[in-house]
């Protein structure tokens, strides 16, 4: 697991928490873990974000949203995209995981469960609708780059699973 410090100026937290992921509106970019630093230097806010997936089209929108929100809060912001260290699903906060589940997207598995999925192909993804662990993968690729398609064998509901990235 990658551990890195996030350097976020406490004054900016509220503004950043008000910005949501354009693909998953229930999740703030803070809960998503894509904001890696936010500092104020000479009255200019400097923010570093990191993409979930290389080709994620949401990154440009997130950059613009940050600038707009900061302007509203009275700041001028510069946004930089950084690649290192690479984003991992471990950076999604517990509040973010809960928001995903409530929204109907199965949250990425914890480390131990994920290993068995990767190595033995066992499906331990729980249905976000009925909670059953009796689910099957329909496709490794889903509606966005970060999701896979699953279906619950008990309630028959299809659902998105937020893929693990470690």
């Amino acid at each position, binding site marked *: 697991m990658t551990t890195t410090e996030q350097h976020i100026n406490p004054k900016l937290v509220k503004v950043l928490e008000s910005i949501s992921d354009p693909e998953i509106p229930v999740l703030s970019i803070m809960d998503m873990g894509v904001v890696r630093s936010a500092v104020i230097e000479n009255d200019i806010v400097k923010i570093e974000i990191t*993409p979930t*997936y*290389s*080709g*994620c*089209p949401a990154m440009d929108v997130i950059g613009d949203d940050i600038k707009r929100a900061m302007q509203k809060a009275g700041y001028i912001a510069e946004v930089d995209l950084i*690649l*290192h*260290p*690479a*984003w991992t699903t471990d950076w999604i906060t517990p509040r973010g995981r809960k928001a995903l589940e409530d929204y109907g997207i199965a949250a990425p598995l914890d480390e131990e469960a994920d290993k068995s999925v990767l190595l033995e192909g066992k499906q331990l993804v729980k249905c976000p609708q009925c909670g059953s662990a009796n689910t099957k993968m*329909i*496709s*490794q*690729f*889903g*509606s966005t*780059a970060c999701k896979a*398609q699953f279906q619950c064998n008990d309630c028959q509901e299809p659902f998105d699973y937020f*893929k693990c*990235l*470690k």
Partner: protein
Amino acid sequence: MKNENLYNYILGIADNSLILGQRLGELCGHGPSLETDIACTNMSLDLLGQVRSYYQYATKIAGDGRTEDDIAMLRKEREYFNVLLVEQPNTDFGYTMARQFLFDVYHFLMLTELEKSTDLNLSAIAKKSIKEVSYHKRFSSDWIKRLGDGTEESHSRIQTAINDLWTYTDELFHQTEADKAMVAEGVGVDVTKLKDAYYEEVNAVLEEATLSVPESKYFQKGGKQGIHTEHMGYLLADLQYMQRTYPNMEW
């Protein structure tokens, strides 16, 4: 240009992803099923995302005012350094998956080494990309097994695709001048050393898929020097259409 070898080295890696991404993108709305359509375009998006990181870095090395779009869209055929494998047409789903599988196994091995590059930009891009490519490899390997160990029809078609594309695999392990220079500096990956691991992994999957490993020792090369197969011109015509028709257009 100050560091032409590094520039050419980056293009050599990035062009593979651009051209394969373009081929996969052709399947948007044309995949054999909704799930495979979405999967192929997802992989295309991953590859194009990786390409942007490489080209953005390349523009900094070039430092001549060219943008990532210029590099992607405004070169001539002879100026693309991708391997011949990735420009081969989709033909049928068997060919699409065989091409993907034969590239993914290489791509994963190459990125594993590129992660250790002394160039921090390349190492960061490799660390980011490998997480995505591991999903690609799992997807294409699964399909090789499903098609090979499937019906008589699927078995024969995937075997034909593997046999046809096999001739393009050896080029993956050829070194260009830029490769050699970058390996010497600890920046680049020595692709010649990946060959054994590559065929070992590929052959194991083919065996599990009840497919036979082609025995032909006749291999094609040229892409890394900018000499392409007849398919490349058509691909570029499609890829570059908007920029050629409406120069300098932006989204």
